[in-house]
């Protein structure tokens, strides 16, 4: 700490130290999120393949994915009856939640650093993300 204060004229150096810690925690958060999502998608994918293996693959014509998969309450119901698509969808939702969690953590981190400007900046990003997800 002492060395930090000596080397920098302002508080910049101390802030970068805190930012650095925040970045490392965020890095771990992202890694964990991706790993969790990948495992879930893999499990869902294996079930999906074993139950649908011999069906023809058809992604040539676009038909919006069934509404059941897009609503959390319906998704949970599908999950209970062991629907493979629902398991994959949960993994995808986990993956999308990972960067959202990173921004949310940024809000907390900047608030701890008492950086009002960047707390507001990260809150703005979080608001845009939540707006998009709630559409």
């Amino acid at each position, binding site marked *: 700490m002492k060395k930090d204060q000596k080397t920098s004229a302002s508080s*910049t150096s101390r*802030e*970068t130290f805190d*930012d*650095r810690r925040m*970045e*490392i925690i*965020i*890095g*771990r958060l*992202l*890694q964990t999120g*991706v790993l969790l999502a*990948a495992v879930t*998608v*893999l499990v869902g*994918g294996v079930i*999906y*393949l074993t139950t*649908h*293996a*011999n*069906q*023809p*693959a058809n*992604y*040539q014509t*676009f038909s*919006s*994915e*069934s509404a059941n998969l*897009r609503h959390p309450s319906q998704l949970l119901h599908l999950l209970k009856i062991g629907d*493979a*698509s*629902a398991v*994959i*969808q949960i*993994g*995808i939702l986990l*993956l*999308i939640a*990972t*960067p*959202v969690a*990173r*921004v949310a953590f*940024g809000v907390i981190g900047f608030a701890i650093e008492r*950086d009002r*400007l*960047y707390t507001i*900046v*990260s809150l*703005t*990003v979080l608001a*845009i*993300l939540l707006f*998009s*997800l*709630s*559409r």
Partner: protein
Amino acid sequence: MPLALFTSLVFAGSLTAGLLGAMTGLGGGVVLVPLLTLAFHVDIRYAIGASLISVIATSSGAAAAYVREGFSNIRIGMFLEVATTTGAVFGAFLATRIPTRTLAIVFGLVLLYSAWLSWQQTHHPETTPHSRNPWSDRLGMSGSYPDGSGSQCAYTVDRIPAGFATMFGAGTLSGLLGIGSGAVKVLAMDRIMRIPFKVSTTTSNFMIGVTAAASAGIYLQRGYINPGLAFPVMLGVLAGSCSERGYCPKHASPCCASSSPSSSLLSV
């Protein structure tokens, strides 16, 4: 084609796309979408949906590795994410409104442009010296990065409004085409805002996941994300880009001297 065979082929293709994307610095998306639409005859809307998911995965997966090296700047990233996420929401809305033919044409143009950009990036010198912009400190964006010999190399940020506007464009492209548009993000930071190349590429990687998440919500609602297709694509691209990162050498360049930055850092 039976589903099992189709899925295996898509997985193999995505793995190659992830590997190529990470190696060339173009990112998985720009290789993946043409592959899915042209070789596998997948509707472009499903293709961009699956690609966007893989973009979130690779960006978030890579971030931890970049963080350790200490180049990324979380403040620059967060600040510019206001622009990229707004752009991404706008782009995703556009994607649901314009005809798929137009979408394909825009995609082709962006593919050519980002190929040209990343080719250029490997040939240009370090950032030009510039006068200190007072807003760089006011917005807390000035920073430093390790130069490889134990000391820190300080930098400031310039031309913030122009960079912000370009980031909005990068976000729009990302939301419109389901790609990371890392090349445009690096262009905004490195060329316009005069941020050192390594800081630009690693910060860009950090931003890509958040940008993509902003359009993912809209894609999900519109049914662009097909679980059966997204799963081999996501796992394939993730595996491909991870294995490429394994080969990526640790490179330390002397502070502020001209260096030949690896384009693989441009990722996604």
